[in-house]
């Protein structure tokens, strides 16, 4: 068990941090709208209902056991020793937040931020499971996510775990750095989304017998684009609060976080719009929206450490990656991901993490930062993805996650909720355009 001192925080910082954290639910609302808008109309109420349930389940699970396993710097944790160096692998706080005083300390602020962020992360897989993931199964899967997958990796990054200690223990820069959650929120969510897309399989009618994908357009572009605007507000709060709590940013530097976040999203959206215009003759609204979100995701890790020009470049590269990846996943890998969750959150987040190793500038010259970031990425792909897959595969063995074929044909709104979201003017059709 190790317990370094809990970082102190000033009153001004506390107030600013609380204000920023209260903006984060806008990101949850935005992501829920994006997921719903990119799905079919006959499952749109189900998608919003699933978002609410997932948020609730994630928060409750995190309260019961998530925070006790994630912990925070200065709280008790279990360690392992390799070559004489102790590294923390899981926190050891009591369940149900027992003994934790919610008094404005850095621990209580971290808890407040995390109980919202875990919901945001848990919403990401819903984008990949749209139109075919049962409500109860999504809630059950969220228990595994918020109770185990998320807290474990978040402890390694934000709770003083072994990834954060790579600098002290092995001389790798300042250890693995992710101020706003590109990895612990988005890549973890994105890789869980990939697991779910694989486990659930594609929607009925998505692929023809010769493997060609059918275009199943999102039912409401306005919801998607409005969701993007809400996500921007939420990310301003998320990145700022994360930078204050996890990167020890002074309140006077929060403006840099806001500028970097906005620049990355802006260049990413414009890049996606331009790339799709060049490739298809017209700018694609859903891919532009994916670009915007991908820019926000990629901005998070280095929001407090990059210069604005570097943040703008991070957004451009993120959008280029995402635009290409969305097609490759759909055409070559047969991953049916209506919300683009895998491309946007997993790939965008991995790029954001690597960008810290490439572009971040520190006052002291500590070599090895890029290696620390690479180890973080290797851990996400080599440990978190198998963990998420196995947990959800086991769940699927005991409790089928995919809705029955009849329910998918009927639409999840009617099948699971008993009423359509748009009962008066929606026309259902199975005739999608074959590409």
């Amino acid at each position, binding site marked *: 068990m190790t317990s370094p001192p809990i970082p102190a925080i000033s009153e001004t910082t506390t107030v600013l941090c609380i204000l920023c954290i209260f903006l984060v639910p806008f990101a949850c609302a935005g992501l829920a709208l994006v997921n719903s808008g990119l799905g079919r109309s006959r499952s749109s109420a189900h998608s919003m209902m699933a978002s609410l349930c997932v948020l609730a389940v994630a928060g409750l699970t995190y309260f019961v056991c998530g925070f006790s396993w994630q912990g925070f710097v200065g709280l008790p944790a279990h360690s392992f020793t*390799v*070559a004489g160096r102790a590294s923390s692998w899981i926190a050891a706080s009591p369940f149900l937040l027992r003994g934790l005083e919610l008094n404005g300390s850095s621990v209580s602020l971290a808890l407040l931020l995390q109980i919202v962020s875990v919901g945001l992360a848990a919403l990401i897989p819903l984008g990949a499971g749209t139109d075919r993931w049962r409500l109860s199964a999504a809630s059950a899967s969220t228990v595994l996510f918020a109770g185990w997958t998320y807290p474990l990796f978040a402890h390694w990054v934000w709770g003083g775990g072994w990834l954060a200690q*790579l600098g002290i223990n*092995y001389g*790798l820069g300042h250890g693995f750095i992710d101020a706003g959650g590109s990895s612990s929120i988005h890549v973890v969510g994105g890789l869980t989304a990939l697991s779910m897309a*694989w486990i659930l*399989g*594609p929607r*009925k*009618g*998505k*692929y*023809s*017998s010769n*493997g060609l994908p059918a275009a199943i357009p999102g039912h409401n572009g306005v919801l998607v684009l409005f969701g993007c605007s809400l996500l921007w507000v939420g990310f301003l709060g998320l990145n700022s609060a994360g930078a204050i709590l996890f990167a020890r940013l002074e309140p006077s530097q929060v403006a840099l976080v806001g500028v970097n976040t906005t620049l990355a999203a802006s260049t990413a959206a414009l890049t996606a719009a331009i790339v799709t215009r060049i490739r298809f003759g017209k700018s694609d609204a859903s891919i532009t929206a994916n670009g915007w979100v991908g820019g926000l995701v990629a901005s998070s890790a280095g929001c407090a450490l990059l210069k604005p020009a570097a943040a703008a470049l991070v957004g451009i590269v993120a959008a280029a990656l995402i635009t290409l990846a969305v097609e490759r996943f759909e055409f*070559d*890998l*047969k*991953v049916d991901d209506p919300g683009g969750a895998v491309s946007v959150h997993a790939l965008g987040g991995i790029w954001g993490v690597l960008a810290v190793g490439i572009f971040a500038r520190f006052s002291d010259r500590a*070599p*090895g930062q*890029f*290696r620390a970031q*690479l*180890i973080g*990425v*290797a*851990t996400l*792909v*080599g*440990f978190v*993805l*198998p963990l998420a*897959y*196995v947990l959800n595969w086991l769940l699927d063995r005991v409790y089928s996650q995919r809705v029955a074929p009849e329910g998918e044909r009927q639409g999840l709104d009617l099948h699971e909720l008993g009423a359509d979201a748009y009962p008066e003017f929606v026309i259902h059709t*199975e005739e999608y355009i074959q590409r």
Partner: protein
Amino acid sequence: MKVMGFLLLLAGWTIGLAAIVLLGSASRQTGFVLAGIGVEGLGLGLIARAHSVLPEDEE
């Protein structure tokens, strides 16, 4: 194929961790960590290939 893919993911991660603990030179560490990520890439490829077989009841 799927199980082999997941084993490769874990193997790639272990290679990266071992490099950080066992190797002293920065260039060697970077090389081995990148090699580990390459092994993970192979694992991902296998898993993706195993999942890209479409069910026969597609309409």
